[in-house]
């Protein structure tokens, strides 16, 4: 980040000297931006074939997870229309 304005991005102010909360906030922001996992992955070189396998696996996992979450939300819903209307 040497070519950017300093103290603008990836910065968290400390409230009332609560350094732990500020560090947790910073960690959460970095994880959600995907910086921590990028740094961990780039520590060693990842060969292109391994990278393609990993991307494929992550795509499939994402599709599976969203579909499963949809199924679970559908099954565990509480507001349902009455199937035996009238009787």
């Amino acid at each position, binding site marked *: 980040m040497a070519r950017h304005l300093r103290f603008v991005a990836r910065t*968290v*102010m400390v409230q009332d000297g609560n350094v732990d909360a500020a560090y947790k906030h*910073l960690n959460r922001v970095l994880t959600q*931006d995907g910086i921590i996992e990028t740094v961990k992955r780039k520590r060693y*070189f990842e060969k292109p074939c391994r990278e393609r396998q990993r991307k494929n696996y992550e795509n499939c996992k994402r599709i599976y997870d969203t579909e499963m979450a949809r199924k679970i939300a559908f099954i565990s819903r509480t507001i349902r229309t009455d199937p035996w209307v009238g009787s």
Partner: protein
Amino acid sequence: MFKLTCSIVNSLSTACRQASTKGTSFSRTFHGTAVGFQEVAASSKDSSEASRDFSHFPPLPGHDSPLRWGGKKFEELPILHIKATYNNTHIQLTDCEGQSLVRTSCGTEGFKNIKKSTPVAAQTAAISAAAKATAKGVTFVRVIVKGLGPGRLSAIKGLTMGGLEVVSITDNTPVPHNGCRPRKARRM
């Protein structure tokens, strides 16, 4: 170029603040630019913000904020760099221009080899750095952390234990946009 960036950042921050005060709800999973995302993250703390007048973002260089620490503005506070590698932790205190004041590391504290790559060693290095800094008359400090090592959090804790006041924490871990090729993968 700097003024243009400042004006852009100003307009973006005011627009985001207006949007957040109107009560629109952003989920935590919203991704955007760094400044935009920080604005969004703070909108979830709107209630505490309004009562406290505290924002998680630093006062931007173009803005004139009323916050002062020890009579100094945010840009004039000394900077404390923490380089947390996987084998060691370096701590260096510089003033706002960049002149070095204090420099400690786990090695200068008497740890050797594998003991340098521990959180305890980073904590002792931070305590000694804080002691030297208070001897030079420094109280409030901005922290810049670089690297994901074992001493990343414990060094900041050691600073507060040593008596230094941390004002803000910045993460300056180098993220290459596919620059130099790192070493080959370890096979264990």
